Each structure stands twice: as structure tokens, then as C-alpha cells.
């Protein structure tokens, strides 16, 4: 009886396992499959996973089009600058929070936590006039600076947590040897926090790489567009080039997929920090 029950539980699990994989994986598989089709074959009835004209043509077309290559260059450049600046500015702020007591600490800390509840669309309208006034409209800096507002808080909260676990005796030892606080922070504390910084860096990269609303509104010309906006532009311009849009989607998702595959543990640690303590 118990053996039979166990068997049926196992059968149920296997059925759920497969249904779940179809639900989660089929859209991705279909995206991949359509990126290798000719455009005429996309809506072919009956649909096929691999068609007669299997080719890399859609990918080749993207690489041959400087306008589309530019979307990728922009996205990589902006995301990289955001990661570097977030870590640099965030680490400095975290050091202050972790090692000092000072006036206004509570207030600044509350402000940083509160950012996470501020909807980007609330800031969008004032950003438009601010960015225009600062003469940053349609530049990398328009995006880098506005992204920092949303990437810094997470970085500061996480890194402050890491630094709090490191004994103050470490900093003091450096200072007794004649080193400065600055040296203690960058030469001693930060190197031992590398695993945590990888999580933070990846989460930051993902935020910047995926951002859509500001990229849509604070840039204007095609040479300043990022991948998320660029994919959608393809839809407007060549309404029916589905195979190219799928190829661009695959290419646009690769950086995150690669990060996930190689750093799964850090990735998950970074992403779930909000809910799991």
C-alpha cells in the first residue's frame, strides 16, 4: 500500500516536472527556434521547431547592421559604467555607515531604504526637465546617473552588511602600521568581500541592462538607444522581421544567461536578498 502510494506520488511529480518545464521553457525554445528560421516560416502551419531553411541569416543581418550593433555597444558601455560607479560610490557610503556614528545617519539611511519604493515613473517627468536643463539629454550620462539612483541603495545595504561582519580590528591594524582608512578599506576589507561584491555587481548589471522606461524617454536618436529599446524599435521599423527580432532577443539575453550559468550561486544570493534573510 505504502509502496503504491509512493509510486503514485513519484508519477505525479514527474508529470508536474514536465508540465512545468514546458510552461517555463517553451517560450524560450520557440524564441531560439524562430531566430533560425526564414521570416516566411515564422507563422507556418503546422509550426515546426526546425524548418527547411534553418540558417544563421538573421544573426548575420544584425551583425552587418551598424545601427543594431550600436544598441549592444551602448548597453554594454552603460551597464559597465553603472556597475563600476555603483560599486565605487556604494562601497564608500557603506564604509561610512559601517564604521562611523554621525549626525543624520538615520535620516540618510531611511532615504536610501525608501528609494526602493519610489516608482521610476514618478521621477520620469522631473527627470526629463532636469536632464534637459543639465544638457545631458540623449547622452550616456542621462542613463548612467538616473540608473545609479536605483542601483546604489541595494549596493549600500548589501555592502554595509558585509562590512559589519568584518572586525574593526582589521582597520585599526592598518592604521597602527601608518596606513590610512582609505588603504584599510580598499586593500584589506574589500578584497575579503569579493564574493558578496560579485552578487551585488551582477544584480546591478542586470538592473542596468534591463532598464526600459528611462532609456525610452531620456534618449532620442537611434545611436543612443539600448538593447531593450532597440528590440522594440525593430518592431516599428520592420514590422515583419520576426526572425531578426528573435535573433536580437537571443543576443540581448546572452549576457544575463552567461552570468547566470557561471555564477548561479552568487546570482541567486543577490536576487533573493530582498525576501530571504
Amino acid at each position: 500500500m505504502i509502496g503504491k502510494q509512493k509510486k503514485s506520488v513519484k508519477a505525479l511529480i514527474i508529470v508536474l516536472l514536465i508540465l512545468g518545464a514546458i510552461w517555463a521553457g517553451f517560450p524560450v525554445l520557440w524564441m531560439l527556434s524562430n531566430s533560425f528560421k526564414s521570416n516566411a516560416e515564422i507563422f507556418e502551419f503546422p509550426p515546426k521547431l526546425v524548418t527547411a531553411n534553418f540558417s544563421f541569416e538573421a544573426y548575420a543581418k544584425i551583425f552587418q547592421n551598424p545601427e543594431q550593433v550600436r544598441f549592444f555597444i551602448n548597453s554594454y558601455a552603460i551597464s559597465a559604467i553603472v556597475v563600476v560607479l555603483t560599486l565605487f560610490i556604494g562601497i564608500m557610503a557603506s564604509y561610512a555607515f559601517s564604521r562611523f556614528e554621525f549626525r543624520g545617519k538615520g535620516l540618510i539611511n531611511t532615504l536610501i531604504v525608501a528609494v526602493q519604493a519610489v516608482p521610476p515613473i514618478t521621477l520620469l517627468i522631473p527627470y526629463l526637465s532636469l536632464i534637459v536643463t543639465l544638457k545631458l539629454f540623449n547622452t550616456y550620462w542621462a542613463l548612467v546617473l538616473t540608473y545609479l539612483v536605483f542601483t546604489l541603495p541595494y549596493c549600500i545595504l548589501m555592502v554595509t552588511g558585509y562590512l559589519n561582519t568584518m572586525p574593526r580590528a582589521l582597520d585599526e591594524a592598518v592604521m597602527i602600521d601608518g596606513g590610512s582608512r582609505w588603504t584599510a578599506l580598499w586593500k584589506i576589507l574589500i578584497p575579503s568581500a569579493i564574493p558578496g561584491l560579485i552578487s551585488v555587481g551582477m544584480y546591478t548589471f542586470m538592473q542596468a541592462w534591463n532598464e526600459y522606461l528611462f532609456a525610452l524617454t531620456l534618449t532620442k536618436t537611434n545611436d543612443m538607444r539600448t538593447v531593450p529599446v532597440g528590440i522594440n524599435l525593430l518592431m516599428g521599423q520592420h514590422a515583419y522581421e520576426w526572425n531578426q527580432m528573435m535573433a536580437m532577443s537571443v543576443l540581448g539575453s546572452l549576457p544575463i544567461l552567461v552570468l547566470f550559468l557561471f555564477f548561479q550561486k552568487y546570482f541567486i544570493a543577490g536576487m533573493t536578498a530582498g525576501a530571504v534573510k
Partner: protein
Amino acid sequence: MNAKLKKKLTPYGYLLPTIILMMILLVIPIVMVIDYSLYDNVIANKNPVFVGLSNYAAVLKDSAFWTAVGHTLFFVIVSIAAHMIIGMVFALILNTRYLSTRTKGIFRAIYALPWMFTASVIAITWRMLLDPNGVLNYFILLFHLSPEKVTFLASRDIALQSVTLINIWSGYPFYMISILAGLQGISPDLYEAAALDGADAVHSFTGVTIPQLRPILISLIMLDFVWTLQQFALIWMTTGGGPVNATETVSTWIYKQGFTKFQYSMASTGAVILLIVCTIIGIFYVRHQKAEE
């Protein structure tokens, strides 16, 4: 400079870049958006007139705004419920002892897939899947689920449900991974104790698993509420709020007021209302997180 003063100023030195950035790009813009909401029309109008709270009265009397609020609530509540159920089921499957570690690893990666894609990729992929000539309609006709092709995103009757479905697909992995981490943190002793008391699988789920996961589940619901409430990209790129206004939510309403109708003051008013709602949830979230510590 004397040493004492220098020591006092050191933390502010470390915080300077953060403070400058947050002043210019957070505090000032929030003051600006509140200010905008009190004028008849800004940016487009060179000499705006102060009108007090009358924009708020206008927004709250606008039936299109309340339609958007209704759609938003449907979108948010159905998404959260489905995220929770799917995330929980997948996490439980990935946590059973019936599967090998290797199998679990492979399926965990497959189930986490939607997490890897940005909103515009998800939007375009699903537009293709849900197209009247798309693969989903092929199966619908093949199994006679509907007498004719279903226009998921172009029909006023089901566009909102279709957009919600896409959001469900894109959002459950966060629940799954968080719940899985929570499940792995539950001590096996608790289950053994429950088993000794004669609890079956259902009772140990309701008696041990749910109470142990409670703090995580509450955090997830609050975070997801704030995120889904603000969801713009996915709706904008699948239906743009249409057909007509069938999928208009608060964020597409705000965006259209500002960037297609150039009613920046009305957009700002909507944006401030959204900010207030998110801030209230945010306060509960912070209190909940502090209570857990």
C-alpha cells in the same frame, strides 16, 4: 584643520557622492513632481498658474483613471496569486527527496529561465506566441479548444487576461527561488516532530512549512505588489494599454498623460498618487523586515 574636526567630517566625505546624487536625482525630483502637480500645466506652458489641489480632484473624478485603477488591481492581484502558487509548487517539486540532485539542478535552471529575460524580449516573444497565426493558436485549433483563432492581445475581452498571463510567466521565478531558499532553511527536526505526532503530508505542509515560510511569503507579496503596481514596460510593449483602453493601467495612464497628451501636470498628479501608495506599502515592508531581525 584640527584633528577632531577632521575626524567628525570623515564619514561625510565618504558619503559625499551618494548625498549629492540623492539630493539632485531623488529629493529635488520628488519636490519637483509634487510642485508640478499643483499647477495647471507645466513644461508645455511657459507661465503655469498655481491651482492647488484641483488636479487631484480632476484625476480622482476621471473615469478613465478609475478604469486604469481597476485594471491595475486585477493585474496585480491575479499576478501575485499566480506567482505564489506556481512559485510554491515548483519550489516544493525541487525540494522533494524523490529526485536526484542533478535532476533538480537541471530543472531549477529551466524553471528559472523567465528570470533571465528583459521585458522587451518577453513582450516580443509572447506577441509571437499569442499571434492569431502563432503556435498557441495552432494547438487551440488542433485540439478544438475554440472554433476560431483567438486574438489574445487584440481583443478587448481577453487582452487584460493575456497581459496578466505574460506577467505571471515573467515573475514567478523570483518566488520559486526565494521559497526554495526558505524551504532549505527549515530544520528537518520540525518535520520529524510533526511526523511523530502523526501528521500526514498535508498537515506537515500547513503545520510546519507555511508557518516557517511566513516571513518570506509576506516579504515576497509586498515586494511583488510594489513591482507589479509599477509594471510599465511589459504592458507598453505588448498592448500599449489597448485595444482602446482594455489594458490601461495606472502607469500607462501616467505615461500617456505626460508623453502623448503632454498634460505634464496631470501626469505628475497621477505619479504622486502612485508614489503615496507605494510609500505606504514600503513602510509596511520596512517594518516587517525590522520585526524579523
